[in-house]
């Protein structure tokens, strides 16, 4: 078993390495991790340091990305913003993947009425424009980053549930599951020890793509003023002032937007790359 696993992952890794775009995405993601961790060291200024003498200054050697309406350094705020987006991406997707995986496994394994019921819930949840649902819930809660992550996660698990269910349905019929049942494994053990590990590939792909989606959603919420609250810098809420000062200060809109674009692009490229590397039909 151990041998097989290492073989599987080394082939996967070989194929991923050959995909240049995916590797670029992967490096950018790694870079974002470093930036988030080292933000206090990398940022040239205090992200919340107000300077009334240097308000709305265009990019210069002192302030590469210019300054905002309170004289804060935009580069420092963008660097700190990476922390928020990273946190939101991972926690929200973690919640979504956890719920989706359990629902998908249970639904696919037990089938029958349990399956029908759970899948109807999925259908109903998918009817709601996701952004409406998120807005509706978030505004009734105290604005906090934890609620944002929870709500994005709680409204984003349906795709994972469908994927895992489909995978479980086919795995359930395999001989080794029959064998596990014959030697008296409990249902729980079969689901979590024998089926779950084999559904990891599709989960990995949709999690990577999901992080990109969660980052976009968080930035849109913060932009509308119901996400991360100032003065905590997030790419979305820097863009809010970008909108207010769009006639005088293009740099306030350009740089945080580019940060979102590059980040989301990187996760998407990596996710697609992982999908291709795991798919035996695509030539590596």
């Amino acid at each position, binding site marked *: 078993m151990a041998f097989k696993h290492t073989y599987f992952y080394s082939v996967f890794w070989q194929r991923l390495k050959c995909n240049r775009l995916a590797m670029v995405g992967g490096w950018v993601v790694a870079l974002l991790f470093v930036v988030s961790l080292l933000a206090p060291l990398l940022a040239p200024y205090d992200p919340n340091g107000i300077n009334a003498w240097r308000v709305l200054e265009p990019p210069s050697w002192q302030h590469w990305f210019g300054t905002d309406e309170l004289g804060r350094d935009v580069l420092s705020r963008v660097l700190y913003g990476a922390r928020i987006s990273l946190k939101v991406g991972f926690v929200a997707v973690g919640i979504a993947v956890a719920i989706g995986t359990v629902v998908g496994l249970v639904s696919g394994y037990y089938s029958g009425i349990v399956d029908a019921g759970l899948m109807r819930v999925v259908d109903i949840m998918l009817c709601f424009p996701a952004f*409406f*649902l998120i807005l509706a819930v978030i*505004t009734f809660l105290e604005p906090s980053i934890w609620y944002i992550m929870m709500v994005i996660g709680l409204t984003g698990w349906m795709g994972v549930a469908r994927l895992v269910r489909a995978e479980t349905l086919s795995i359930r019929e395999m001989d080794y599951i029959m064998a596990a049942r014959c030697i008296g494994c409990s249902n729980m053990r079969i689901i979590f020890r024998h089926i779950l590990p084999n559904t990891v590939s599709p989960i990995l792909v949709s999690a990577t793509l999901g992080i990109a989606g969660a980052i976009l959603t968080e930035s849109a919420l913060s*932009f*509308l003023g119901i996400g991360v609250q100032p003065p905590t810098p997030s790419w979305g809420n820097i863009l809010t002032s970008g*909108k207010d000062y769009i006639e005088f200060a293009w740099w306030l809109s350009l740089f945080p*937007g580019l940060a*979102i674009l590059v980040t989301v692009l990187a996760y*998407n490229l990596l996710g697609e790359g992982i999908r291709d590397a795991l798919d035996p039909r695509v030539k590596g």
Partner: protein
Amino acid sequence: MATYLVKRILILIPLMFGITLITFSVIHLAPGEPVEMQVAMNPKVTKEARDRLRKFYGLDKPLHVQYLNWVGKLVRLDLGRSFSPDNRPVVDKIKERLPITLSLNIIALLLEFGLAVPIGILAATHRDTWLDKGITIFVFIGFAVPTFWLALLLMYFFGVKLNWLPISGLHSLGSDSFGLVHYLWDMAKHLLMPVLVASFGSLAGLSRYMRSSMLNVIGQDYITTARAKGLSERVVIYKHALRNALLPLITLFGFSIPGLIGGSVIFETIYAIPGMGQLFYQGVMSRDYPVVMGILVIGAMLTLIGNLIADVSYALADPRIRHG
């Protein structure tokens, strides 16, 4: 076909029930009540006044009674009255704004499909050339661009810098006195940016989908047969392949509706368009429960209808489903 249609419509009933249940619980299980929100700013409110308000909104009754009351009214298309100072029926408010959002989204959908289909065909027929690669890069960037940022950039370039397009609203001041042609031209100028922003997000995904659907069809045996017969490449692609490649796009049409409606919050807020998205945003910001619940239900129902239309048109287009 008739049985298919009946079956398809019967499925809607439990789904609609589920939609009302989720809408109701989302709003009522969240901590805090509308009354709390209304009195929180005013420390002078007595307990009696608070109870009176709760009674007025029916919040003193048990949850299941509240739910049944709400659904009972909903069936008669009564969504209650808005909590905002004008206190108008929510149905009227939505009626004013729904046509604006719907027509904007339909124009955006047409633009999206109108562009995505040729782009997808081009990419598929020029597979692995620089053209295909260029389109792929465009698609990936399209996936990653935040719509509100795109809206800001367009606003900056075409509205502020070049001053070509108006940056907010649907009409210019005094547009009532314009002649018809001028009036329509004025509205078209106002709509151009919102429509572009609304369609851009899904354009990328749609053209990607069209490409793979086309590639899939081109690989089929009957395309090889058509080529072997000596048909020109044009006829093979546009007559034999295209029709089949378009089929899966019908389903995608249904799927794209919730995204479009949800996205309208963003561009309607940015471009100050008095549509449903803006109403929802205002409702959410002022914690106007009836408006929020009403729009949630209507938004989900629109999705259901869109999916129904997509499924029925698919059945009409594909005999395998109709008779299966």
